[in-house]
């Protein structure tokens, strides 16, 4: 098969059409990105809303993914010690690992983080203030502006510069249940309010649905190729909430949202993402008309990739499935190589698959493992050659 343009390759794979090779989508957190970029001599390493795709395209990505959801800013933003930073939802974020520590101690602390290869781990950012914890809060709350030019303008630029060649994805994560528990309401609050104050949970989820539906329609109108809805409902061994609760709380709201997206562009590709084990709701994703499902985290409940592919693979395309929890950060080079080969065998046969680690590449991944993965994906990701012959 002749070599396809990346944009065409990605779209064809999602449609389960023949492609020359398995399309790719790597994503990195800033520490990992900077580490890899140094090797390629790339200096523009922005992530989140300052995303610069140069490095990812160099590594072979067929798509460009740009984040504008509630996750876009906080997790990529440098937050100072003791600072609480508030985003456009009014959620506050601070830094972990620094309780009672001075800036000098912190400096010393980050210097000692060279482990498992040349990595430098900085503490993560975590939500520490949740704006809606009562009906009163909800009543007085103003949802952000879904036509905010700060969110939409960079997408115009991206489309002009890259869409001729690359597939453009806009990421709304986190969108619904996760946006509510992790950010707007707080995790423990969310689970307790499901029973104590269901009307509060309904109100928050309705507000999020309305905001993200409108935001999604606005970006679809700009001419993007795929909208990514990210909503973590999977834990390591099972779902966080029951599939039944998900069908009550999330499914009808996603149905409304996706119907509205398709009214803006009937051909828009929709990706629905969850971390962890979400295998009990893959059938529901198909009913919702989702085109692409990921990231197939293989270390917990949905590790049976062969069965998942057999059961659902004809009706939905998959992305991900390559272990970032243990194999990529801590495996030996040969194990990484074998891992890539296994994922290709399990998920890429007969198409409908995009190769990706099962989440961001984090700072703890040794460089040699990243290169082992890149090499293995070239070796094992070509249709017509082993193991995809």
């Amino acid at each position, binding site marked *: 098969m002749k070599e396809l343009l990346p944009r065409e390759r990605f779209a064809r794979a999602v449609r389960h059409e023949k492609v020359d090779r398995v399309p790719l989508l790597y994503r990195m957190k800033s520490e990992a990105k900077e580490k890899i970029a140094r090797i390629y001599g790339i200096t523009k390493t922005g992530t989140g809303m300052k995303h610069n795709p140069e490095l990812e395209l160099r590594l072979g990505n067929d798509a460009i993914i740009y984040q504008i959801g509630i996750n876009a800013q906080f997790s990529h933003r440098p937050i100072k010690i003791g600072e609480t930073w508030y985003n456009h939802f009014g959620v506050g974020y601070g830094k*972990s*690992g*620094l*309780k009672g520590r001075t800036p000098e101690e912190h400096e010393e602390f980050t210097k000692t983080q060279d*482990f*498992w290869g040349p990595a430098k*781990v900085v*503490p*993560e950012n*975590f939500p520490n203030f949740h704006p809606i914890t009562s009906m009163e809060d909800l009543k007085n709350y103003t949802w952000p502006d879904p036509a905010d030019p700060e969110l939409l303008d960079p997408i115009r630029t991206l489309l002009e510069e890259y869409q001729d060649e690359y597939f453009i994805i806009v990421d709304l994560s986190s969108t619904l249940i996760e946006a509510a528990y992790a950010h707007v309401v707080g*995790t*423990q609050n969310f*689970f*307790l309010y*499901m*029973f104590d104050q269901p009307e509060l949970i309904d109100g928050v989820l309705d507000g999020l649905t309305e905001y993200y539906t409108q935001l999604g329609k606005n970006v679809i109108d700009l001419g993007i190729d795929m909208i990514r809805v990210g909503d973590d409902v999977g*834990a*390591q*061994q*099972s*779902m*966080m*909430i*029951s599939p039944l*609760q998900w069908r009550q709380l999330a499914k009808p709201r996603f149905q409304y949202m996706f119907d509205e997206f398709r009214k803006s562009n009937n051909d828009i590709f929709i990706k629905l993402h969850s971390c*962890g084990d979400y*295998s*009990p709701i893959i*059938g529901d994703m198909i009913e919702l008309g989702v085109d692409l499902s990921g990231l197939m985290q293989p*270390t*917990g409940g949905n590790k*049976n990739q062969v*069965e998942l592919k057999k*059961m659902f693979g004809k009706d939905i395309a998959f992305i991900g499935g390559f272990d*970032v*929890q*243990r194999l990529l*950060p*801590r495996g030996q080079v040969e194990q990484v190589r074998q891992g890539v080969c296994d994922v290709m065998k399990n998920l890429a046969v007969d198409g409908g698959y995009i190769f990706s680690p099962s989440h961001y590449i*984090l*700072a*703890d991944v040794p460089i040699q493992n990243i290169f082992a993965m890149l090499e293995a994906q070239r070796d094992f990701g070509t249709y017509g050659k082993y193991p995809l012959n």
Partner: protein
Amino acid sequence: MNTEFLDYEGPEEPELQIPEGWESRAPEGWEWQTLWEAVETGDHIYTDERVRESIEMGIDPRVILDDGLFPGFNLQADRFSAMVIFIPEMLITARAMKAGLALIRPLLAAQAEKPIGTFVIGTVLGDMHDIGQSIVTIMLENAGFNVINLGTDVHPDKFIETALNEKADLVGFSALLSTTVYYQKVTIEEFQNAGHREKVKILIGGAPTSPEWAEECGADGWGKDAVQAVRLALKLVETPREVWA
């Protein structure tokens, strides 16, 4: 469509275990059924009322705990372990249990009933996740441990200092990120460096952890979920250790 493989491969759905001979330990005409159901469904208000009523009736606090509170809690813990119920249901049951325990614990202490052991728990440095370890905490308390929960983002020094002050039998730390599991190892090494490693048994847990990692980082045990963690704690507390000075 065949969805069998998605189902939990384990025992049948757990059933309520009614404590044998409970009638003989309760006043004439007494019933526990509604309390079992209240704990099962996470009704903390009714649980609080019924435990108060039971105390006023002069029922032995140990009996209230074993016959009144545990059956509903154990049922949900087994269901949680079997993935029949999920985090929200487990949390509200834990909350109900906590309401009952808050009333009973001072009475047990007054009867000079000693805790099984002292357990210091927390999430390692750099990590803010706490749902899992909160559930483990409540379950350990239910099992009779004196639990000191240090919260999230706990520096190794803090674990050591608390273990020393409390003469802890067990220490447990959770980590939820592949970048923070490293601090489980660091914290264990710090216990070693401080000369206290042999005085405590150390358990680890959290999504990216595994039995292999537990061995590699030098822990004494690994819990797949809260129920397993408590079983392991009950076993380890019996094993010999160096005594605190």
